């Protein structure tokens, strides 16, 4: 380390030591209250003035002061005495959950204190050969066709590009299975997909045996290909045309680069966003990770592989014998191994693929439970803090990424802690009313301010808590089962293109109603306690208030598990492209208002009468996004109505028959990634802590009533029948 760096570190350590001394000074409560209030006020002022740069660091440092003093007080003064075991054990559990949260906050502060700004991609001067892998398990041919067509349409020299469909649903093992149904399905799938690949000019690979799930599939592809770079796309992650242009240039600059990762962008809402109807104005949940956390990780050279939408270097993969397969999140595991081997990674903060979120809450939970279990496996098998070969910053980053998945534990503890007092009268946290004001209130406010400062425009207040709570009841058993049996978690499949035909309750929603009822019981217990023990009113008010906060979250979660009917299986993306629409034999001037993977909405201009009866066939012709050619795709009209001013709105569904039709559809949706960037930007504004909280509470109230309404009218019904598209592996 150079002397400059050494001096910086030393100076920082000295200041940190002084800071710790100040945080652990046993000053009186007056001093604590006054300091806490001052600090929060200054943080608010800095935020209101939208000061950036060093002021941001000052706000973070001030927030850290309050957190530090809270931790010191919590550790030294609030734990119940050890001789009261009925209080001590829950008290220690609650303390552990809080300290876990503080640890995650500190790690987050480290990771995202100054994330890298988006940068221009370096222009490549040579064109290395690229193999594109599209692994599939049970996804439908139509979905795969879109993705493969988009991959073929990538802006890259054609002779250097090979697209491979790696089919795990048509392996020899499956085709020769003793189960007749499995065997028949596999053989049919193999035939259908082979034909599709033939049409599109894509290589089809099916391996002999299903081993090590997706990692094994990719490794099989590695064995049978030879490109210098590997790009991986999930079956539903169709790339934009400029994908390779934006990513391959980095490999020239740095020999040790093994990964360029791009964000996962989704054109449809996840089940929570759909059921809560927030997709159009609130940033998606993954945007916090891809929009800011990966940028922070990138600063410390710890951006990791997320399984798709990435380019890897074959030579680097060779050093680890391909993709690692001992955990079910083989992507993060592979990146960890390659980082430990000294490789570097880059994160490109531009959405260059468009994918699909799981359609139902059950499949969403299935996906998350796989991620949680896989990260637990990585934590147990490869313990990042002690992994040889990682830098200190990388260790902290991987700690942050893996320990994050312990949130179900802390979330459930926070949920149940107030009930310990309200139902059982246990005193698991010794604090007086004055201490609550001086320590807990200031800590909560500083925490909210810190979170808002770090993630404000990417994650609205209380949404993190909602997502955590929505996942906790099912993820908790999943991660506990991994602890007891690390090598045998199940790799469940996420059905991605199910449609919810009618509004109904999710089949896994019962625990949420049970918890909600429990918390309502807590509210009743609060009122009862206030009435019968008025001298304990201050404790009852504080604990009851906490329970009420949990109740608000639980009420909102009731809305999350009440699946809303969404006639549109796929989302429409607004575009604005001139085109021509042929109905029968006549070509009309038109423009495309919005497109989706299934169809498009047109504005047709015609003076005079215009009739497009449902079911009539037609064609849309338009210019490709980046070129001068015209392409066209056949369509069938679904509906049509007049808008006035000689404009007619026509909704139609694609009816592709040939490969170039697929390319046309891909061009419509996937050619222009600017659309996606601007859509994301349109949602990224920070409502602030107060407005965000008010909005959240009103949302929770509405969703609670909706959820209770669904429960009362008993909309159980059958789980959604998969449409002909079937499902896909996550």
């Amino acid at each position, binding site marked *: 380390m150079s002397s*400059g*760096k050494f001096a*910086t*570190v030393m*100076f*920082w350590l000295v*200041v*940190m030591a*002084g*800071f710790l*001394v*100040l945080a652990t*000074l*046993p*000053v*009186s*409560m*007056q*001093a604590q*209250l*006054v*300091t806490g209030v*001052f*600090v929060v006020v*200054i943080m608010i002022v800095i935020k209101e003035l939208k000061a950036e740069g*060093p002021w941001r*660091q*000052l706000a*973070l*440092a*001030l927030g*850290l*002061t309050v957190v530090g003093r809270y931790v010191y007080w919590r550790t030294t003064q609030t734990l119940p*005495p050890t*001789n009261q075991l009925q209080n001590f054990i829950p008290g220690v559990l609650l303390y552990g959950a809080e300290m876990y949260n503080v640890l995650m906050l500190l790690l987050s502060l480290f990771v995202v*204190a*100054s994330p*890298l*700004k988006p*940068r221009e991609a370096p222009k490549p001067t040579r064109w290395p050969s690229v193999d594109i892998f599209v692994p599939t398990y049970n996804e439908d041919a139509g979905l795969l066709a879109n993705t493969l067509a988009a991959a073929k349409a990538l802006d890259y020299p054609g002779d250097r590009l090979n697209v491979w469909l790696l089919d795990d649903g048509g392996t020899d093992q499956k085709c020769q299975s003793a189960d007749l149904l499995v065997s028949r399905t596999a053989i049919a799938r193999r035939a259908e997909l082979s034909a599709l690949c033939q049409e599109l000019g894509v290589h089809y690979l099916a391996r002999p045996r299903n081993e090590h799930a997706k990692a094994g599939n990719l490794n099989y592809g590695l064995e049978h290909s030879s490109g210098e770079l590997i790009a991986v796309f999930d079956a539903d992650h169709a790339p934009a045309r400029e994908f390779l242009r934006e990513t391959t240039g980095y490999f020239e600059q740095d020999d040790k680069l093994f990964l360029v990762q791009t964000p996962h962008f989704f054109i449809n809402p996840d089940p929570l966003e759909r059921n809560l109807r927030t997709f159009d104005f609130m940033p998606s949940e993954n945007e916090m990770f891809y929009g800011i956390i990966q940028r922070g990780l*990138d*600063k*410390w*050279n710890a951006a990791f592989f997320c399984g798709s939408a990435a380019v890897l270097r074959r030579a680097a993969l060779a050093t680890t014998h391909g993709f690692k397969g001992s955990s079910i999140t083989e992507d993060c595991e592979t990146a960890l191994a390659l980082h430990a081997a000294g490789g570097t990674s880059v994160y490109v903060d531009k959405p260059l693929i468009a994918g699909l979120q799981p359609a139902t809450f059950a499949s969403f939970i299935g996906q998350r439970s796989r991620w949680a279990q896989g990260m637990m496996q990585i934590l147990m098998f490869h313990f990042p803090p002690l992994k040889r070969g990682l830098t200190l*910053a990388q260790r902290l980053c991987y700690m942050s990424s893996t320990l994050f998945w312990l949130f179900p534990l802390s979330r459930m503890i926070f949920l149940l802690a107030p009930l310990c007092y309200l139902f059982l009268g246990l005193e698991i946290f010794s604090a007086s*009313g*004055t201490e609550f*004001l*001086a320590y807990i209130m200031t800590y909560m406010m500083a925490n909210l301010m810190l979170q808002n400062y770090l993630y404000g425009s990417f994650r609205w207040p209380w949404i993190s808590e909602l997502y955590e709570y929505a996942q906790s009841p099912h993820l908790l058993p999943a991660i506990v089962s991994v602890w007891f049996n690390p090598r045998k978690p199940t790799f469940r499949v996420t059905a991605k293109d199910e449609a919810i035909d009618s509004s109904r309750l999710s089949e896994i929603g019962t625990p949420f109603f049970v918890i909600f009822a429990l918390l309502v019981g807590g509210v009743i217990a609060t009122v009862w306690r206030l009435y019968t*023990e008025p*001298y*304990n009113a201050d404790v009852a008010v504080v604990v009851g208030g906490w329970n009420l906060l949990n109740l608000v979250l639980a009420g909102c979660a009731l809305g999350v598990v009440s699946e809303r009917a969404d006639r549109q299986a796929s989302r429409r993306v607004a575009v604005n492209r001139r085109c021509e629409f042929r109905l029968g034999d006549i070509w009309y001037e038109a423009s495309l208002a919005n497109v989706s993977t299934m169809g498009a909405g047109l504005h047709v201009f015609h003076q005079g009468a215009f009739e497009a009866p449902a079911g009539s066939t037609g064609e849309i012709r338009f210019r490709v996004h980046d070129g001068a050619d015209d392409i066209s795709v056949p369509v069938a009209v679904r509906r049509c109505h007049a808008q006035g001013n000689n404009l007619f709105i026509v909704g139609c569904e694609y009816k592709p028959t040939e490969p170039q039709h697929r390319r046309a559809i891909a061009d419509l949706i996937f050619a222009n990634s600017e659309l996606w960037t601007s859509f994301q930007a349109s949602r990224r504004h920070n409502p602030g802590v107060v407005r965000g909280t008010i909005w959240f509470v009103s949302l929770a109230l509405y969703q609670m009533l909706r959820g209770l309404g669904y429960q009362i009218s008993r909309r159980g019904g059958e789980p959604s029948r998969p449409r002909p598209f079937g499902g896909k592996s996550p």
Partner: protein
Amino acid sequence: MKRLALLLPLLLVPSIALAETAPFDMSGERQSVTPEATAPARPVTIATPVETPPPSRHYILPTGETTLSGETDRRVWSLNLDAATAASATVLSLGYSNAVMVAPELSTLTVTVNDQQLASEAIQAVEKPATLRLTLPPGLLKSGPNRFAVTAKQRHRTDCTIASTYELWTRLDPATSFLEPANGGADNSLDAIRAVGVDANGVSRFTILAPALDQPAAVAPLLRLSQALSLAAAMPRQAVSFVKDTLPPAAPGQLALVVGTPAEVAALLPNLPASSADKPFIGLVPHGGAMVLAIVGPDWGAIASLVSGLLPASAQGDAASLATAAWQAPDAPLVTGDRQLSLAELGLRTEEFSGRQFHADVAFALPGDFYANAYGEMIVRLDAAFSPEVRAGSRFNIYVNGHIASSVPINAVGGSILKSLPVRVTMRHLRPGLNRLTFEADLATAADAACLPGATATAAPRFALFDTTSIDIPRFARAGQRPDLAALTAIGYPLATGDRPVALYLDHIGTDTLSAAGTLLGKLALKAGRPIDVQPTTALTGIAAGPAVLIAAADHLPPDVLVRFNIAADVASRWPSGAPTGATTPAATLNGWRDRLAADNGNPLMRAVAWVRSNFDLSSTGWHLAAGVPPAFLPDPSTSVLAAAGDNPAGDADWLLVTTPDGAHLVDGVETLTREANWQRLSGYVSAYAPAADRMDSASLPTRFVGVGTSGLANLRLIAANWLSSNLLAFVGLVLVFAVLLAATTTAMHNRFGRRD
């Protein structure tokens, strides 16, 4: 007594006969009916008042009139008796009177001597004072310290409320509380000093006859003698009087001494042994019908070494406790940090209680450099039990020096046993020297709420406080401060603990100034637990360097000395005759009214603000970064004596000043000031006592630290915590500074490590 009982019927007969012959003549009744007839079995006598107490009484109440109040109260003290008194005393007389509301059938007064209960009598002395005459079993009293305990259990006649328990009191009369016959006679000098006892008012007096007291060489040994006497006797109200010619007649509570060279004292003491002519002699000799302690030596140097022999052995080292046993047994342990004191150690036994409000006191002492008022907290680990009768709404309160410091709600249903329940008690009201911790339990029961007749007679115990309860005093910040009158007087810090000799300024050497000096130095030495090495001088120039004690009337003090103590320079002229300074009643202020209104029924916002202000004690004093100096102190004319702490001209030592308006009242003023009850109230940098109103006026100055640089890092941290807790803005500023530094260094780290933009 038996003979008297047999005579009773005979006495009755003439009274009946007289009644028949002269029905309206009540005079016969009065003559013949004696008080014994009303309560034949009780050994109670109405004591006939005597003008001069006969010398065969040894008074026992150390602090004069003593009041036992509330439903349960006790006094425990240790009285030194010499061998002859201990052997001869056969009767303990205890005179008392009590409040009207004390129910005699439910209230008892228990007297215990040396752990043996002598009597447990009903308390019934409403109309006129009563006297208990208790027989002392032979061998109960010993030579040396004897422990006396008087416990009152009082119940109200009619009311069951906690407020009504404040109407219960029993007053012990010092004039009628004594041991008799007390044919005193000590074996040796120390015993005689220790067994000086008290007079009918609770004062112990040493009268020293020293014909040569105005010789310069004699002053220091005489003052050292005063301190030795004070350390040995350790009584709460001791006074030293110097005389040049004659001794007063012998009386209880007095010890006379004769000090000088053989030439000076030969005339006074003809019975001195012959050997004293050339060898130093100390011992008891008869004089004028009583024994006096003679200290005779060839020169004053020899006398000084005799005096040194009188000093208790433990005075040489650091005291582990403050001597309080003479009025409050046991001695208060001195806590220097990180100590657990159990109630048993502090003299409190496990007690069960069946009334409404339970009280118990314990005491401990803190060193003079105690500096943890702003942040400190101690933990009381409570072992107690509550019966199922006790309802929710009851509270267990802990008071420190009379201020509420902690309150624990008792909410369990069906009784509870508290085992080591940690109760956090703020250290805000602790002070250097003696501190009193009061445990109080307010018990709310359904029976008391209903208050049926006889409800106060409940015998079933409702509450028990176990003596395994412990007080955990953590390590606290220790920083000497200047000026600090409380530290100087309550525990003699740092005058007595320093290694520099203390100068003593008297404006002239005479019996009055020497008496005042002897009394004052005796009190300081007793509080410090060791004698103070003084160098008397009458020249102010001699005391410029090092610590000093100044005792003089205000008109004999030059203005520059008064300025040093921030006392008005013209105090001599304005003190006795000036207009009242108006410091007696606090002026009505807008803030006071605002607080009162807000606390009662203000709107919610005002109530919330008032709650925050009261709970967080956010007064304006904590906000100043640099406080100004208060104006020079002018004592109120009703005050008769003043004590002040200040700096010496060099600024490196403490000065203590005790002054009165004029020289005539110097001795009285100092004796009043050194009474234990008044001495404990000295605080701030100057305090003036008004005897008529029993009021102590004090004023404070911002203090400076003394010698903290050498204490360890841990202590410095605690001192910083305390100082920052009292200077809130400084703490906020420090936090801001460190946040800025942290932000700057973190930015630098981010610019040097990891990828850069």
